[in-house]
């Protein structure tokens, strides 16, 4: 049951912020704002493209930024250079508002390299850690596969999944640092513990719908069809 205190917003790049940025619209990234309506604390998941716009939305909602959660290091999620474009992200956000970026240990060096933030800007976590935003607890699930330190966020009956799991398909496992076998374990073991009525909120809008229950996703998404790692590797392995 969702708490009345739970503040949760799903923002689509190019539509809800960075509206003049063609790349933001094309990439269709989701940014999430998660917080406690009582204490007015909030964190932002994967700020990129238009960080001033994102901060203005928090301001408008009278919420105070208390941290950043990075699902993984790719520039469309944390900023940096990608496909010849420079994307705003956590570095520009920290210049506007000093705060910490929560990352998994395996992702720390990659985030630093891509965004040029320093060790002091990072709060490094391991699997099973959680953070509190006001009184709202966010569990950090280490879900390697798309990248070594990819993480999903479980909070108040929602799963904010970055590029680990989409409504249809999962994150690519053919990129540098990807690991198809690790992705199998993340989806079929780590995320298997997430209840069916938890609502999956992905890192991109790659489907007609923007969110769906895990139960529906398990029923419809082809990544749940393989019932062994061998079958999985036939589909996703190199």
């Amino acid at each position, binding site marked *: 049951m969702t708490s009345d205190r739970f*503040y*949760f917003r799903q923002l689509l790049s190019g539509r809800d912020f960075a509206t003049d940025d063609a790349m933001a619209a094309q990439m269709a990234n989701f940014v999430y704002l998660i917080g406690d309506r009582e204490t007015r604390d909030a964190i932002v998941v994967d700020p990129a493209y238009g960080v001033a716009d994102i901060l203005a939305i928090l301001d408008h909602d009278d919420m105070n930024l208390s941290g950043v959660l990075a699902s993984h290091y790719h520039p469309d999620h944390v900023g940096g250079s990608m496909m010849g474009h420079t994307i705003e992200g956590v570095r520009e956000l920290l210049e506007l508002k000093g705060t910490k970026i929560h990352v998994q240990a395996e992702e720390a060096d990659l985030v630093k390299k891509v965004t040029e933030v320093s060790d002091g800007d990072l709060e490094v976590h391991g699997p099973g850690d959680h953070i509190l935003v006001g009184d709202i607890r966010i569990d950090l699930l280490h879900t390697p596969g798309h990248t070594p330190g990819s993480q999903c966020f479980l909070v108040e009956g929602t799963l904010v999944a970055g590029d680990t799991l989409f409504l249809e398909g999962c994150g690519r496992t053919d990129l540098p640092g990807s690991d198809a076998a690790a992705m199998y374990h993340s989806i079929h073991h780590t995320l298997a513990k997430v209840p069916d009525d938890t609502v999956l*909120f992905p890192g991109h809008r790659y489907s007609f*719908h*923007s969110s769906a229950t895990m139960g529906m996703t398990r*029923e419809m998404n082809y990544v749940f069809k393989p019932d062994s790692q061998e079958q999985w590797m036939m589909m996703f392995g190199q």
Partner: protein
Amino acid sequence: MSIHSLPPIVSLEELENHKDAVFCDVRWYLDRTPGREKYNEGHIPGAIFVDLDEHLATLPRKSQGRHPMPAAASFAASMGSLGISHTTPVVAYDDSGGMSASRLVWMLRIVGHNAGLLDGGLKAWTSDLETFPNVRKAVDHPIREWPQELFADADAAAVAGQKTDQTLVDSRSPDRFSGEYEPVDPQAGHIPGATNLPFANNLTSNGYFQSPGELRERFEGAGCGSEQSTVMYCGSGVSACHNLLAFEHAGLGKARLYAGSWSQWSNSDGRPVSRN
């Protein structure tokens, strides 16, 4: 009810007292004609387009029906993305007597949102239409859980069809109820024990709702008890919302919705089917 609360069915004249209401165009067609195209051809000035399939349902599947209810968190995110906050009054319309717009109004009303269905729909608006698509800035829309007491699953619908102190209402047309005609679902007929009250008969011949008194006679005449003793269904949990709003408009309170409806029931193994 405060003076600022919208009734379930609201006339254009009554909207004089609700100048802050946002019009939502919820046109949707069973033949897959895109509602958004109709919206772009002309809509009530200021109206935004709400997509039944995208915003008011999750993916169709045999196990759940053609328009399963979205998760509460998904619905809240959709409403927020459309620029509807929890304090934004909503008036919804379509051009099918309220068949699809009812779903939005009912979903909002059951979580305490101020919302009403425009009596007469688009044709009640006799002034010029607008063709420019309206986009409202996305806003915060808190998640409010669906009240489970206002829903019936297939087993509860089966019980409502059999128990004497409950009523199961099928809101589809008489030919679909009887099983003479079935355009979309794998079996023709209805759930045993159901009473047929086609949603279209809530309207008079000119397309406006009957009076609350007439609607009350209609439902009570069919044996409906008040509140949750009545369960409504239809093809996919959409047009049943028309009956649910008419029921509330008649002063009978909030009945229950079997959201899976015939699209789920007729796809389930072993569910009995009546034809007559």
